[in-house]
């Protein structure tokens, strides 16, 4: 679904050029669950931003469904960003003063979607948050906030979920729940999930692991990276 060829991203800061990405080649298809690992500053977030159309490569080629994204206008990029991708951040990034339902409606508003209420409610049901529909972010626990954020990214039925350390602020049990949710999305809906994490246990949920260093991919377990890692037997299921 996405193909990156020799993608670089150079930040020019105060006369000094920082190569956040130094030639990345990567291909990810529908239904893949990819973990991206690497030391701090290795370019993981930069890669996620470029894949999610929040940022543009300095050089190199990015094909989305076979089409060069550089050819898209800014408006098309914005629309695609909302329709094809779902972002999940470590810090949830919910809007204050908005109920859970309104948070999930937000991307649908920008898609000018019909039936926003129902679709948002459905997305909340999918993450098991139907009982907190009218809650504000400060009335929710960290895990609950993250599940609302995931519901928000699912509301538009994205092709790919981009999760940048989604469990970084959560305890292991809550983190495990989020990971099982991702696994479910991958297996039942064919969503591609790209997950940045520092924790090896979290990475084991993914079927494919990519390691980065200094803006380069130094290791890729590949698409046929063995059987999907499943959650420990005791914690799986509902």
């Amino acid at each position, binding site marked *: 679904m996405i193909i990156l060829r020799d993608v670089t991203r150079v930040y020019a800061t105060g006369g000094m050029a920082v190569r956040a990405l130094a030639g990345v080649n990567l291909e990810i298809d529908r239904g893949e669950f990819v973990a991206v690992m690497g030391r701090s500053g290795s370019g993981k977030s930069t890669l996620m931003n470029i894949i999610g159309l929040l940022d543009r490569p300095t050089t190199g080629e990015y094909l989305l469904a076979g089409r060069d994204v550089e050819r898209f206008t800014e408006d098309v990029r914005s629309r695609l960003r909302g329709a094809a991708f779902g972002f999940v951040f470590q810090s949830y990034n919910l809007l204050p003063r*908005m109920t859970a339902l309104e948070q999930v409606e937000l991307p649908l508003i920008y898609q000018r979607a019909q039936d926003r209420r129902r679709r948002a409610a459905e997305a909340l049901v999918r993450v098991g948050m139907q009982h907190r529909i009218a809650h504000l972010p400060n009335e929710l626990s960290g895990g609950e906030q993250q599940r609302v954020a995931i519901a*928000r990214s699912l509301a538009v039925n994205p092709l790919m979920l981009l999760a940048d350390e989604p469990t970084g602020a959560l305890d292991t049990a809550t983190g495990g729940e989020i990971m099982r949710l991702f696994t479910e999305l991958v297996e039942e809906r064919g969503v591609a999930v790209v997950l940045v994490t520092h924790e090896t246990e979290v990475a084991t949920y993914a079927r494919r692991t990519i390691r980065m260093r200094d803006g380069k991919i130094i290791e890729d377990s590949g698409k046929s990276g063995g059987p999907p890692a499943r959650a420990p037997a005791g914690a799986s299921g509902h």
Partner: protein
Amino acid sequence: MSLIDAFRVTLRAIFANRLRSVLTSLGVVIGVSSVIALVAVAQGTQQGVTDRIRGLGTGLIFVESSAAATTSQTGGPAGLVQSTLVASDAAAIAADAIPGVIAVAAHAAVDTQLVAGANNVGATVVSTSSEYGEVRDLDVRSGSFITPAHDEEGSMVAVLGARAAETLYPGADPVGQQVRLSFAGGRLTLAFVVVGVLEEQGGAGEADDQAFIPLTSIANRLRFLYTPAGDLRVTQIDVRAADGVDEDRVKEEISELLLFRHETTEPDFVIQSQDDLISAATEVSNTLSILLGSIAGISLLVGGIGVMNIMLVSVAERAREIGIRRAVGATSRDIVTQFVTEALTLSLFGGVVGIALGTGASLAVDGRAVGGQELAVLIQPWSIAAAFLVAAGVGLAAGSYPAYRAATIDPIAALRNE
């Protein structure tokens, strides 16, 4: 994002910062309400002047001595002494058979104090002739107006305007009573017999507060009112023309006659029809409207700057929100729409409240005396429409730059900032 959704976001943001929003709108409220109130006063004043001129009936032409016109409005003694206009000019105009001229009356107005028993009132005394009643279309309620016989004999008689009569003789018929006229701050007091009281004119009618005496009566006491040639000086001659007469023709013929009589080529008089006076008054008050409107407009500008300032603060505060919205699919145009809608709502809210306040304030001061002058207001629909449009314009102008700033915020940087 649809406009309805943008408006929802706006309402949420405004309600989240209620006090700040109200204070922001206040600048626009003050600007809009002062534009409306000041324009209403200026327009009301014009309406008052126009009504007063129209109240004189139609077809009046005024010939005023240049000397009197430049000294004082009511024609104080100074203007009168220098006036080159004389009573026989009026007679000549009447005798010249200018087509369309119905009646001619010369007069001089003097400020006096009227005294009757214990009552007194300041009034403008119009020294004129019997024709004045016809020229000015004055109706007599009791007694009669000045008669040709009074003119002839220089009788010490006076006709009172309705309000002056009521003040001096409350509830009584003053005809036959004595009234004393005190000129020049009390240096000269003369006794007159009231021979008539005018019908109340009401509204803008100036005759209600005036008294009328024969020119000849006072001239017998004040010899300086005579020219060396034995003519009576006046400050103004009023000419009534018939309906449908070409007033410009009449003005021209009067002018030629007076130039001939005064043996000059440079007019020492000014001839104006009612329409001339109305358009002069309109011009003055339009200038006043524009002047007052622009002073108030400056406060509207200040209000707009306030809106812009708060919008810039709001954009800076909500950088993260903007980043999130961009990440979930908002185009930069969506962000512009959101912030322009917010600025527009703030200033239109201020505009609506300002219109209500300005209209209310205008109605509240209507008819009140301020500095001895009764304020008249006239709220013009166009001033409300203009204030509303300007408020909208202020909102657009004040919102555009902050919205542009919001739209160019780098979503990645905004999301990274915790």
